[in-house]
């Protein structure tokens, strides 16, 4: 099997519709008779709905219906898909997340919806929503995770007075870690906040619910990363409607970064109301609503300690973290600070004893869930900040300290996978190689000389390192099931060979920028030895695709791609039987290459197209073999995949103003085999920008009343073109030993490694000039950096 397309930077097939303005996002879709919804939302972080007066709003011409929580008493809340129990066995606390807050109940974050107005136009719906009179009784609120645990903290849910959703311990017993730390010659301690950030996909969420009475069938168009998952959650847990009566379509989706994984109340509401009204109902979030209602990311307050012996070998790691869940438990929320975070705290190091202690709390803020990297950036931030700080404190070189503590190379084939102290077994890794390459690209020795010179001036320089490992290709169902997942995390794929030999591939993965329409087709065309033009990819529609778990956790190619390969294997096996029959030989005498079966050692062959035609016109056909050439497969991975890499940031800090300029961003990533280098580089670039964004620009600011005070692009600082340098990327390839493509996943890597690299670089710059801060609160604004020097 030759690789004509795999490994090539094939230009994306999806681009032509986007560059000509012909992408079709949910808000672009107009259905006949479509109505428009607008929500009345709580202006308070915590307030009781005393009464709702709809009279004036209902009287407005063009208003079709207004629903409040009292109309939805029979409808369930949106569910949580992952259960993490308290360490003492108490079940995770799962407060209802209602569609709309009923009268007498309390809104629990700014933006919690109390009513929905449905009208003939969006403008009318907005105008009428302003006439809905809600009488609020404002109550005290808490927004910061650590504050939620204070004895007199306002309660988010009356029934859970300590505001805890669950707590969790992982790794080695604390006594063992304490004992290891007692032997340490040096302990690096760091208290920090991994601040809350907003995913900010550029396309705001949008949904259209439509009910067809003739077929008793619903259609939901939704800006989602996983249409089938939304269908399952909405049908089985919220609305109680049968799944075969619901079609969920995820059309073109303008980015997700995690925020479009979850099942949101608005999705169920437009679907529900379309049946009540017999007309399609559309809702499109505006950016302000997105800030208030999209699931946010991160939000940890951590105290971490790393112990070293006199030679600099790591002896132990002890962590205590409070993680913010927000007001409700979002779909994957409990997994993020626990099994996607605690299990990654081995990092790339041979740390013998690790213990993590998490307390996950409710606050009067919108839910926190997975955001690009989900738990793994938090773990990497923690470890990599500790490593650079430890090097500074011990007078060691940060790169040297890492080389000394790295897990030695292992390929997962000759050498076994690496068993960590925190449950996971890494598949393959070569950590020294990525750091070595990174140092080469940096020209490390030259840099240190330059830095020493710069330290004498007002523009000081710093370098920050971050070497990370992540767990992707989420996930082996049995493993995640044992960890609390309420779903399997396999993927499905159907490969349908048409009678003329053209191929339609149906995948349960969903592309919202990742380029599946190109990369998946590269794989299929190569495996079948046919032109890419003969293959089309179909995704995002629950009526045409049997099932799917969707796209998140850098899983599409590793899991969804593997499912496709399984189907192709079945196609080739059956095709081989047909070919052998036509060529009058034994199957074992055939080999498949370049789109045809050939009798070994002869020039007798039959093409893929001829076999396909024969499968559908089975006149001369093996006895007992079914006609047709169409296979579905489900692939459940044997393990996570473990991409890793080295990110290095170089910053210049203006001593007069504290302004940080990112001069260089170097990324050497190992994501296993690469199908399309251009697309992988693009994924890394985007991740880097988001990670740099968290380090330097982004972060929510809540006031003491739980109001988000920077809920717009005027106030929330998104990274812009002139904030960033050209990125310097390179790659190493350590194939994944346990999936057929040897791929590991590249979607999140950039966002995982870059944040600590940038912060480390600023700290390094300050130490070079004689200031010795341990930490500066992210984002590293000029003011905060200046204060660290003054």
């Amino acid at each position: 099997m030759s690789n004509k397309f795999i490994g090539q930077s094939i230009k994306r097939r999806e681009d032509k519709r986007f560059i000509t303005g012909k992408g079709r996002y949910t808000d672009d879709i107009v259905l006949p008779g479509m109505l428009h919804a607008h929500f009345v939302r709580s202006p308070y972080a915590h307030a009781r709905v005393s009464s709702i007066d709809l009279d004036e709003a209902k009287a407005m011409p063009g208003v079709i219906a207004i629903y409040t929580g009292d109309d939805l008493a029979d409808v369930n809340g949106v569910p949580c898909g992952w259960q993490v129990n308290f360490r003492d066995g108490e079940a995770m606390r799962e407060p209802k997340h209602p569609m709309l807050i009923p009268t007498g109940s309390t809104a629990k974050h700014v933006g919690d919806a109390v009513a929905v107005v449905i009208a003939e136009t969006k403008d009318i719906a907005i105008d009428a929503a302003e006439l809905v009179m809600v009488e609020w009784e404002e109550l005290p609120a808490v927004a910061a995770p650590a504050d939620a645990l204070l004895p007199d903290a306002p309660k988010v849910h009356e029934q859970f007075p300590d505001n805890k959703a669950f707590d969790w311990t992982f790794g080695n017993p604390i006594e063992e870690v304490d004992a290891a730390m007692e032997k340490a010659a040096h302990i690096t301690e760091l208290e920090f906040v991994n601040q809350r950030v907003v995913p900010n996909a550029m396309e705001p969420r949008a949904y259209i619910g439509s009910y067809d009475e003739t077929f008793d069938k619903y259609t939901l168009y939704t800006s989602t990363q996983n249409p089938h998952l939304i269908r399952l959650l909405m049908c089985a847990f919220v609305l109680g409607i049968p799944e075969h009566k619901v079609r969920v379509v995820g059309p073109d989706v303008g980015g997700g970064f995690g925020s479009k994984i979850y099942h949101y109340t608005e999705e169920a509401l437009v679907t529900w109301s379309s049946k009540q009204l017999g007309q399609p109902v559309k809702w499109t979030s505006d950016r302000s609503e997105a800030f208030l209602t999209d699931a946010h990311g991160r939000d940890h307050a951590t105290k971490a300690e790393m112990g070293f012996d006199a030679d600099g070998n790591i002896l132990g790691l002890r962590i205590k973290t409070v993680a913010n869940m927000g007001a409700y438990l979002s779909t994957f929320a409990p997994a993020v600070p626990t099994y996607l975070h605690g299990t990654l705290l081995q990092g790339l190091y041979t740390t013998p004893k690790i213990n993590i202690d998490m307390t996950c709390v409710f606050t009067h803020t919108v839910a926190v869930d997975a955001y690009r990297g989900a738990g793994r950036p938090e773990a990497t931030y923690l470890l990599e900040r500790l490593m650079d700080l430890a090097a500074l404190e011990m007078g060691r070189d940060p790169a040297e300290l890492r080389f000394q503590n790295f897990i030695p190379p292992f390929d997962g084939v000759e050498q076994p996978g690496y068993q960590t102290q925190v449950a996971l077994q890494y598949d393959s890794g070569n950590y020294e190689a990525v750091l070595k390459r990174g140092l080469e690209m940096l020209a490390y020795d030259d840099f240190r000389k330059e830095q020493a010179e710069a330290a004498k001036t007002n523009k000081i320089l710093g370098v920050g390192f971050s070497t990370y490992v992540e767990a992707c290709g989420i996930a082996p169902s049995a493993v995640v099931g044992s960890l609390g997942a309420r779903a399997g995390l396999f993927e499905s794929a159907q490969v349908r060979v048409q009678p003329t030999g053209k191929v339609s591939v149906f995948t349960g993965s969903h592309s919202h920028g990742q380029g599946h329409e190109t990369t998946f087709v590269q794989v299929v065309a190569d495996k079948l030895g046919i032109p890419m033009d003969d293959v089309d990819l179909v995704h995002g529609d629950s009526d045409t695709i049997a099932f799917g778990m969707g796209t998140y956790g850098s899983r599409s190619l590793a899991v969804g791609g593997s499912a496709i390969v399984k189907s192709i294997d079945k196609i080739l096996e059956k095709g081989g039987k047909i070919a052998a029959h036509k060529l009058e030989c034994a199957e074992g005498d055939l080999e498949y290459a370049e789109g045809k079966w050939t009798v070994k050692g002869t020039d007798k062959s039959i093409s893929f197209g001829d076999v396909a035609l024969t499968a559908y016109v089975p006149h001369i056909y093996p006895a007992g073999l079914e006609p047709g050439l169409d296979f579905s497969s489900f692939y459940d991975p044997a393990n996570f995949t473990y991409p890793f890499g080295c990110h290095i940031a170089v910053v210049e800090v203006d001593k007069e103003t504290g302004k940080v300029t990112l001069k260089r961003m170097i990324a050497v990533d190992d994501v296993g085999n690469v199908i399309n280098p251009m697309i992988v580089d693009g994924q890394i670039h985007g991740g880097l920008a988001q990670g740099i964004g968290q380090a330097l620009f982004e972060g929510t600011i809540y006031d003491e009343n739980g109001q988000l005070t920077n809920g717009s692009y005027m106030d929330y600082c998104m990274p812009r073109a002139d904030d960033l340098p050209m990125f310097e990327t390179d790659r190493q390839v350590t194939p994944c030993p346990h999936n057929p493509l040897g791929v590991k996943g590249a979607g999140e890597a950039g966002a995982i490694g870059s944040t600590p690299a940038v912060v480390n670089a600023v700290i390094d710059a300050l130490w070079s000039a004689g200031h010795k801060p341990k930490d500066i609160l992210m984002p590293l604004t000029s003011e905060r950096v200046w204060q660290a020097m003054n």
Partner: protein
Amino acid sequence: MQLSGTHVLNAPVGRVWTMLMDPVTLARIVPAVSSLEQIDDNQYKALAEIKMGPVSGSFSGNLSLLNIRENEGYSLHVKQTSKIGNADALINIALKSLDNDQTELTFDGDARLSGLLARTGQRVISGVANTLTKQFFANFDEALIHE
């Protein structure tokens, strides 16, 4: 949002006190307030038009006087709602008689904002508060001259 200010008025404390207790005068000197209607003892219904940076709106709500100490001061509780968000402020006003028939008026308090105001108005709000404070004292001076 913290609110505070101090200003010396050219009038004896008794006169200042009378003006502070008179809704008609108050409506005239409190900036942005377009009407003040008494609904109960020391309870008023107030309408105000305020522009804060990118957002502007008309506010309606209640204003009540608490903790009234003649010639010494009172607390002002303002609860306003609008399409662009709500404000809830408690402001303590204190009077101090000075020589030369002058009176020092000091106020300080805290305003809690919600909704769009809180989200997009915060950056500019202290500037707006300063402007309103200046206007308030200027209007007061003006009223003292003309009455």
